[in-house]
């Protein structure tokens, strides 16, 4: 089994997000990048599939600050091949990047043919589309998103579970090769001891791949008028005081609403 995981780094929302003076981007000084959460899940799902079916996991990560950490951690978790992809513009919007990634996967030696490409179902800065269906469309492969489980990976098909509203799930069968947008892995991404990551830093090798010429510009066809913090249209009335005081106020409130 040949599994490819596409991972991206996105701004870490634990840090304060401030808008740059131009009003059209985030202030990069304050930014710290973190692997996109659902990409971490995509990696975990790939590793679980490798444990179940054997094969190789290739992690392709878009170049970003601290991306080496992401890749070495992936190696420590069990990824076999690490590729840092340069020359793909990241940031707001993913369409240009996803299409460039698809082309890079085709041109980089040995990435394809693959059975599955897994990536996160969506990321927090995907203003102009979703990575998984774009990859699929460019490669001409079938796609399904919001996947939370792979039930079976056979020679020519894969059976996956997708989440629907109200706690319902749907089991789909797809022909291989396919692209999966992973919402959550079957179990939370594993912890890897730092000692293993440090060992990976010495033993594992990160290949650097250069993306071919982009076929689209970032946010092509879209004018970004401005970025801003959302107006609290109808912000909550805030209650202050020590817990006991606030509890008392809330009780009054609930009683007034006939809830007590």
């Amino acid at each position, binding site marked *: 089994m040949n599994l490819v995981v596409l991972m991206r780094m996105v701004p870490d929302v*634990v*840090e*304060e997000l401030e808008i740059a003076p131009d009003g059209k981007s985030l202030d990069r000084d*304050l930014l710290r990048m*973190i692997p996109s959460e659902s990409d971490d899940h995509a990696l975990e799902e790939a590793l679980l599939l490798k444990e179940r079916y054997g094969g190789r996991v290739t992690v392709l990560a878009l170049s970003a600050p601290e991306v080496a950490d992401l890749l070495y951690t992936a190696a420590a978790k069990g990824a076999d091949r690490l590729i840092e992809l340069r020359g793909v513009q990241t940031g707001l919007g993913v369409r240009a990047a996803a299409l460039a990634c698809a082309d890079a996967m085709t041109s980089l030696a040995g990435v394809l043919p693959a059975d599955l490409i897994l990536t996160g179902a969506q990321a927090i800065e995907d203003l102009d589309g979703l990575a998984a269906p774009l990859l699929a469309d460019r490669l001409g492969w079938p796609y399904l998103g919001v996947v939370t489980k792979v039930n079976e990976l056979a020679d020519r098909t894969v059976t996956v579970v997708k989440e629907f509203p109200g706690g319902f799930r749907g089991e789909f069968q797809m022909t291989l090769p396919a692209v999966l947008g992973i919402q959550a892995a079957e*179990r*939370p991404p*594993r*912890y890897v*001891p*730092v*000692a*293993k*990551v*440090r060992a990976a830093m010495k033993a594992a090798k990160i290949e650097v791949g250069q993306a071919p010429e982009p076929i689209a510009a970032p946010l092509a066809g879209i004018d970004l008028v401005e970025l801003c913090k959302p107006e609290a249209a109808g912000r909550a009335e805030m209650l202050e005081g020590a817990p006991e005081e606030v509890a008392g106020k809330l009780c009054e409130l609930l009683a007034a609403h006939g809830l007590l």
Partner: protein
Amino acid sequence: MGISGAAAPACELTLENLFEFPQGRRVLSCIQCGLCAGTCPYGDVMDYPPRRIIAMLRAGLLEKVFQSDGLLACVACYACMAKCPRDIRLTEVLLPLVKEQVFLNLPETPAELHRALENTLRYGNPFGESARKRAAWVKTAGVPIRILPEDPRPVDVLWFVECQNSYHPRGQDVSRATARLFHALGMDFAILGNEEKCAGECARLLGETGLFDTLMDYNMAVFAKYRFNRIVTSGAHAYDAFVYQYPERGFRYIVEQTTPFLARHVDRLRPLLTRKLPYAVTYHDSCCLGRHNGFYEEPRSLLRAIPGVRLLEMTHNRINSICCGGGGGGMWLDTYYKAKGYERLSERRVKEAAATGADVLAISCPYEISRFEDALKVLGYERRMLVRDVTELLAESMEA
């Protein structure tokens, strides 16, 4: 004094080279008396207490110990090491080595612990809060506090604040109290502010030595940027890390924990303690400060210096103190222990404190405040007893 031993050797001890060192060879002198297992607060659930670990080691069966997760219940309280008649460096040396392997072999890391470790690696604190917020408490300290990255002139005392006391609301109370005391003593002190990161001791005691090494490397590099004469730290575990582990990387600074440091200055503090605090106070001996380093009388001398305070002793005090359960990763394993049906050590300890009839449970290790306040709530004692750091009581007694 207590059982503080010589600092660890310059090069690293491992399970492979264990017997090349005196501390390692001492392990083989174990007489299998079982005092360690008997005194362990979780001895009844520990499938491999130190006695059995050593027996397995001698029998060449240590691998089996690595496959069990029982050692996650070790809260690194130094009780076994304090009682060992052979003075084997259990908590200091042997247990972390074995726990490192246990940790590597865990099929799954318990979720809360997983998050705490990931957060510590990424943000320098287990809470997962931005490093940029580490010194936010300074704004409400009420006294000026110099932050070295902003003002890097040489300073006498580098105050290493520690994670709980930087981010946790109750810990911030302690930091504010400490700052007021330092200021009242006319100390020339400064903090690292947002450049400070966890000292890593609990990660090390748990077996996450990679994380510890990463933090140690980072902290040593930060220390090297500034000029100071000594370090005073609020962290009891941080103190241990600096005294026993960091010398391995060239740490040569004089270091003290806040409580013994303030105790050295009790004569200068006493005239400032003008407000009477009519409390019956029972002091909980922290594992690191007490059993490990022998600082039993120092916190008591501080409490006795406060007018109105009446000291009561718990049944298990000084060397016999019962751990709050926060060390060695225990701070983030409460859910895990609960699922296994273990009693929370903090609840056990709080029951004992309440039995003294004291109004205040005084502590001096940053983990203890939240653990004991939590236990008081669970047991329904929160109206009977308050938890206060020794520094908070001292600051309260200083006229505003």
